[in-house]
């Protein structure tokens, strides 16, 4: 039996699935290998009692705006033929932001949509319309500018003219941090808080966070609007896998790869953990980039430049998630919103310090799924997720096998207390099902270094603009492509899905070139 494939894709995570589906769509013979017993990586779900909990995807952008205009991701899903297998629900509310600091006393609820957002900010901060409009203009231009930059292959005078002409605000702001741009616009505090409210999503300090990166994300949420899949993200993963199989692709679950085989600096296939060797012309790797270099490749074959690149990166924030099935409806509990951002303080520099340790971290993003998908759990029950982000590398270093359950429960207890305090609700006595995920959990399921859930950090010279501009530079292993959250556009669902698609396009482009040169 022939074991030779055009492409082996390692990992059926989000990037692996889109890479495999695109390659199969183009008629390539593809083998998709997944070490777990189901596809999706982080985009998955699990069942406890009468609840099905989403593992990580609480909002997804790029499908809307508002399901009436096709976003970039929706276009990709259409092309791959998976859209009809997934039902989306559009969210109207961007977030409700509450701070635990009694003096700050912040409680803002902000809607999706540029005009609605500006109106609401005007309510909280009269006279802010001008600044809000200026910010949205730069945001929209930055987004267009970044897209344009991504299409450039050779620099010429015309391109510089275009950049300076059409995207000058983008170029002028791209080198600055969020707070530097706020300063330049003399943005009042309430405007900063409303526009900066999403920073939790990255667990980052707005004194350091790139304006362009932050607001590219902000745009996709606030201007385009997020959606959620009606039956958890496992439906997206299942739809992609099922489509891949319909297109003739072969997928093996419970099949771990031990090595990527490289001969003369060219990937030629993989060796499975059971020793079986599989030959292929190309390999697309969706395992974490960190693991690709440290585990899946022999030391000698990794180009020094790539090792240096890996060493120049810092690990992004680590995750903590609480999954709660409550035995009472959200109305009765008084949980009125879909998405809560609860912070110690709206001062991001202070907050970034506080998120370094369990003792001080009060930051959380809470999602009540029923306020997006009303029938997501049986009548009279509620699904509530609470996620906390940890910055730095130390916060969980004191865990041992023995103290682990108590350590995670102690922090979960505080997270519940903070949620109750911020929202004025009582949820504790209604907990029917509970699971607590920590950096140890993410280390377990994703083999994520130090339990990070966002790949590499986006700050300083490792920002997304800098990555986009430089990632093509430097020696690489031929015919080995990377797909997934540790890639150029950093981690998150959209970058992961698009990285797989891009990897497939690069493979296809190279195949074409090789075909021509033969």
């Amino acid at each position, binding site marked *: 039996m022939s074991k030779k494939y055009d492409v082996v894709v390692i990992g059926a995570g989000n990037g692996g699935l889109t890479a495999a589906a695109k390659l199969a769509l183009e008629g390539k013979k593809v083998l998709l290998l997944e070490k777990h017993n189901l596809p999706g990586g982080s985009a998955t779900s699990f069942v406890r009692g009468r609840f099905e909990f989403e593992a990580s995807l609480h909002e997804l952008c790029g499908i809307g705006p508002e399901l009436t205009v096709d976003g970039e991701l929706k276009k990709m899903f259409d092309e791959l033929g998976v859209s009809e297998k997934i039902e989306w629900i559009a969210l109207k509310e961007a977030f409700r932001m509450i701070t635990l600091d009694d003096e700050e006393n912040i409680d803002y609820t902000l809607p999706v949509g540029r005009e609605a957002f500006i109106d609401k900010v005007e309510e909280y901060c009269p006279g802010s319309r001008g600044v809000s409009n200026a910010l949205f203009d730069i945001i929209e231009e930055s987004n267009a500018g970044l897209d344009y930059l991504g299409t450039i292959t050779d620099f010429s005078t015309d391109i510089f003219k275009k950049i300076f002409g059409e995207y*000058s605000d983008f170029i002028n702001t791209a080198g600055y941090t969020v707070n530097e741009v706020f300063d330049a616009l003399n943005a009042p505090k309430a405007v900063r808080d409303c526009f900066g409210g999403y920073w939790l999503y990255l667990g980052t300090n707005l004194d350091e966070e790139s304006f362009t990166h932050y607001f590219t994300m902000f745009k996709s949420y606030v201007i385009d609007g997020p959606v959620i899949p009606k039956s958890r993200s496992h439906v997206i993963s299942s739809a992609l896998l099922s489509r891949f199989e319909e297109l003739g692709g072969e997928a093996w679950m419970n099949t771990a790869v031990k090595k990527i085989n490289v001969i003369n600096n060219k990937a030629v296939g993989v060796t499975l953990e059971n020793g079986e060797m599989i030959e292929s012309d190309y390999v697309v790797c969706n395992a974490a980039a960190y693991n690709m270099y*440290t585990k899946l490749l022999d030391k000698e074959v990794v180009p020094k430049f790539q090792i240096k690149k890996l060493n120049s990166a810092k690990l992004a924030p680590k995750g903590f998630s609480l999954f709660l099935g409550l035995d009472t409806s959200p109305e009765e509990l008084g949980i009125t919103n879909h998405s809560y951002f609860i912070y110690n303080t709206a001062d991001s520099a202070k907050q970034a310090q506080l998120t370094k340790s369990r003792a001080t971290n009060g930051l959380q993003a809470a999602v009540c799924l029923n306020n997006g998908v009303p029938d997501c759990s049986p009548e009279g029950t509620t699904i509530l997720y609470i996620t906390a982000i940890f910055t730095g590398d130390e916060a969980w270093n004191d865990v041992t096998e023995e103290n682990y359950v108590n350590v995670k429960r102690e922090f979960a207890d505080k997270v519940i207390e903070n949620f109750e305090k911020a929202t004025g609700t009582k949820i504790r006595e209604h907990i029917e099902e509970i699971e607590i995920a920590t950096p140890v959990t993410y280390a*377990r399921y994703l083999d994520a*270094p130090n339990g990070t859930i966002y790949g590499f950090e986006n700050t300083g010279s490792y920002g997304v603009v*800098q990555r986009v501009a430089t990632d093509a530079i430097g020696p690489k292993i031929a015919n080995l492509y990377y797909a997934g959250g540790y890639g150029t556009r950093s981690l998150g669902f959209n970058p992961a899905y698009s990285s797989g698609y891009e990897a497939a396009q690069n493979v296809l482009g190279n195949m074409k070139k090789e075909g021509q040169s033969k």
Partner: protein
Amino acid sequence: MKIKALPLKNGLKDFANTVSTIPARLGDVAKASDTLPLPTDSFQVNKVARALHPKEQPLTVTKVEDVTDDFKRYYLKSENGRTAYFRAGQYISITLKIGESLCTRAYSLASSPKEALKNEYCIAVKRAAGGFVSDYILDNVKEGDTLTSYAPEGTFVYEPLRDAKTVIGVAGGSGITPFLSLAKAIDERSENLNLILLYGARTEKDLAFKKELDSIAENNGSFKVVYVLSESKAKGFEHGFIGADLIKKYAPKGEYSVFACGPAAMYKFLKGEIEKLGLKKKYVRFEMQGTANGEAKSGETYKMTVINRGETSEFTCRGDETVLTALERAGVPVPVRCRSGECGFCRSKLVSGEVYIDESADYRRIADARFGYIHPCCSFPVSDITIKIN
């Protein structure tokens, strides 16, 4: 709308600022070390994850002990050098090759979590009618044998953020083992709750671990045990089946949780009884122990085609047995843990054909049900089937 005069700094300087970050990026790369960083296992959280969830634990029997006439305790040590830590109430699964069959069964750990840190687990196996694997273990497994096993699993654990501070444990038959572990955990202070255990058996001589349970109860005010005999009457023992009245008799005034572990027959009776107590759903938890696989619809024999990593093989399956049983009988290696529909390890794609899944055992994800995935451990074939396991 285009902003003509952006209230930022000088345009050219700002552009230069952006462009300068690109060589800065390359400069940072050039400065970085060219030695590969250590693999993920070097991080403490990754180490803990690996220690708690080893892929496999080869377990060697160090001692076999008779507990009652038909109940034996097996002391096990891991060939990995340490048995993974666990929470009282969790189970390990053991895979055995018996003739041509490859069978996996879940056994609740009967030892304490802290004993695991000294490289020791205990499980107890009871002879059961039609117990193919339990009979095999009782008659064949001896000191020095090494068994294939995996990391501890299971959600039948005490969780103070969810459960009441007092737990009424209801145990029957081999269902005593997770409670023995929990009592030991209370005793060694790795768990903090009040456990009132109602332990049912036919006669006094069928009670397992009585001495150990009594001794813990004597020394520890947080643990109490009540023996309930169904076929004999004796002083100091309750008589009959464990039902609502008996639970009420021993329950505290305030809120309490009920945890139950035992044979299917016990559950059938107990479920109705617990309903009478009017407890919130969150306060009632059953350990399914491979009992929740529903009832067969037909006794016919069907063709079963199995796809595994691109290879296809043909076997037969029977309407009165689960698809998993047919796979095990055929000697097909399938990842299996709980055998109760809950854990999802055996999740496989039903490529063609039909199966019957009892609603009570259907713990599948919504999308899995929609895209044709089944948990073979609680799916009964009702036609010829093709199943893709990997």
